């Protein structure tokens, strides 16, 4: 089930300041009903604080939060139609799986028969029937994860908040749980608001995502949109590898901007992908897999963007080749090329030409340089 157009979550100019830091800075965000929406960013970007404010665990310093059209800014968690899947699950260690899942229903004084039925149902939903009598400590990480999801979903909230729910799992299990969560979301059809620092996870699962940094949203959009047309240098770097060349905007005409990059070449950028309009110095980018690398001979096709450079390193990865090229203006460019087994591979040190379609080109707003902790992500 996709988005319905109805707004389920609305954050209006929300800020959260702790003693001496601003965790969330004047953030405005709308999430539609039924959407799988991710908040993506490095640790410390404010994504978890945002989620905790929606859940009611933190109070915003400024701004309002609406859920389903109702202002809930001052309501405690238990008065909101929201449930949370916590980082590291936060299961009750002294209760069985059944009692963990039944906890919310029992507090709401649901009849015994219905508790029984709904707990069983949600354990089937997360593929854990028969585990009712176990204690959390007797379960694997992935199973605990499923219990946490069941414990939240059994209450039939309008919105499910998930705070890095897969962070503690190993890669293989994480991939499996990603698909599982996606399936569950489609099955129950409620809005999922998902916090993660894993860009691949956010892209595989979300209908839309917001990339956050320093308490602000850098860009909101569908995964393809954010990946193919990143708005800022930070987004370009955070969602996979990208090649950026600095240049001067020469003219904008017919929906196409022409940018003279330092080192000579003129690149065409669709105007729709020119972020930060009105600036003359821009950074032009292209994703490594969009580039075709050929020997620098013959005439470059005038229909394509192309730059020349010197091949430094060619790495054979099996499924693809990875090339590192010294490009114009002393910039290092990366190219991924699928291993078709047909093209001859140029020798390192030789002159090469990089070509790509103008519509794969984007221009980003510059970001402050990355801090060390962001590069680690």
């Amino acid at each position: 089930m996709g988005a319905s157009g109805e707004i389920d979550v609305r954050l209006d100019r929300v800020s959260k300041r702790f003693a001496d830091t601003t965790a969330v800075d004047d953030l405005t965000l709308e999430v539609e009903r039924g959407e799988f929406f991710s908040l993506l960013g490095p640790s410390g970007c404010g994504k978890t604080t945002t989620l905790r404010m929606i859940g009611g665990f933190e109070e915003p310093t400024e701004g309002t939060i609406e859920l389903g059209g109702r202002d809930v800014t001052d309501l405690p968690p238990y008065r909101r139609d929201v449930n949370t899947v916590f980082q590291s699950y936060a299961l009750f260690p002294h209760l069985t799986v059944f009692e963990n899942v039944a906890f919310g229903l029992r507090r709401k004084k649901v009849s015994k028969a219905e508790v029984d039925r709904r707990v069983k149902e949600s354990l089937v939903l997360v593929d854990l029937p028969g585990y009712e009598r176990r204690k959390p400590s007797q379960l694997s990480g992935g199973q605990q994860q499923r219990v946490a999801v069941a414990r939240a979903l059994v209450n039939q909230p309008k919105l499910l908040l998930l705070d890095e729910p897969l962070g503690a799992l190993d890669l293989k299990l994480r991939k499996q749980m990603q698909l599982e969560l996606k399936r569950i979301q489609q099955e129950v059809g409620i809005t999922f608001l998902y916090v993660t620092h894993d860009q691949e996870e956010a892209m595989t699962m979300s209908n839309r995502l917001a990339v956050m940094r320093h308490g602000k949203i850098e860009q909101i959009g569908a995964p393809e949109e954010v990946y193919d047309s990143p708005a800022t240098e930070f987004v370009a770097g955070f969602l996979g590898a990208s090649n950026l060349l600095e240049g001067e905007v020469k003219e904008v005409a017919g929906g196409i901007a022409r940018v003279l990059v330092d080192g000579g070449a003129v690149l065409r950028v669709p105007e729709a992908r020119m972020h930060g309009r009105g600036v003359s110095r821009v950074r032009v980018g292209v994703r490594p897999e969009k580039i075709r690398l050929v020997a620098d001979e013959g005439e470059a096709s005038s229909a394509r963007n192309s730059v020349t450079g010197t091949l430094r390193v060619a790495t054979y990865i099996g499924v693809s080749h990875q090339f590192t090229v010294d490009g114009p203006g002393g910039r290092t460019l990366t190219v991924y090329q699928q291993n078709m087994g047909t093209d001859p591979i140029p020798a390192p040190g030789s002159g090469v030409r990089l070509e790509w379609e103008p519509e794969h080109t984007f221009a980003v707003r510059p970001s402050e340089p990355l801090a060390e902790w962001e590069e680690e992500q």
Partner: protein
Amino acid sequence: MFFFLVPMVTMLSLSLQTCNQVTLACHLTWSWSNFPDQIRQYHSQFANSLVYGSLATAIDLAVSYPLAYWIAFYGGRRKNFFLLMLLLPFFVSFVIRTLTWSFILADQGLVLGTLKRIHLLPGSFHVLASGTAVVAGIAYNYLPFTALPLYVALERIDRRVVEAAGDLYASRIAVFTRVILPLTIPGIFASFLLTFVPAIGDYVNAAILGGTNNYMIGNVIQDSFLVYSNYSAASALSAILMAVALIGIFAYARVLGGRTIEEYI
């Protein structure tokens, strides 16, 4: 194991020996009658020990839990400072601490003397030499033993688990009764153990704050050993005390749920 077994075996065998009280020579006579004899002779001191010890432990648990709860959940950055305040009296010798209280609470001392002078209390009022003073003294002296395990248990609770309970519609009371209290039962048990066992064997408080009517079994054991040199009687009393403590502990563990004792330690 060596340091545990040797005194234990020595004590148990002494309790079955007959000693010459002049030469202090003892030999094993398997005199099992030591045990019923001692119980008959000192049953009121045994009763004092159990009652005072239980009352003091109950008071300590009732006082420590909110205290430890507050430090663990609301202590913030000053947690360590609060813990230090709790432990600070510990840096003074046990006997000196208790003696200080006997000065403070003396009939004409700082507190009672002043209150009597301004006629807020009748002249015959006294605190010392009463069971109340002994219980209060024990409770005061063993409070850190109760508070620390409780603090550790409360501190160890994952705050997200508490948040999860709130997220799942638990009121503040339900969060406490359904999550926090059950998760601290091992801590409560450890506190009980560390307070109750030394409390029933205590003799300093009874000696300093109590009168002869408030003697506890610890005082009797001390006198038997050091004053009358009746080693076999003292050993028998100690063995009985130990048995009583063990029975108490197992009974308590049963009440807290039929779990094995290892789970708590």
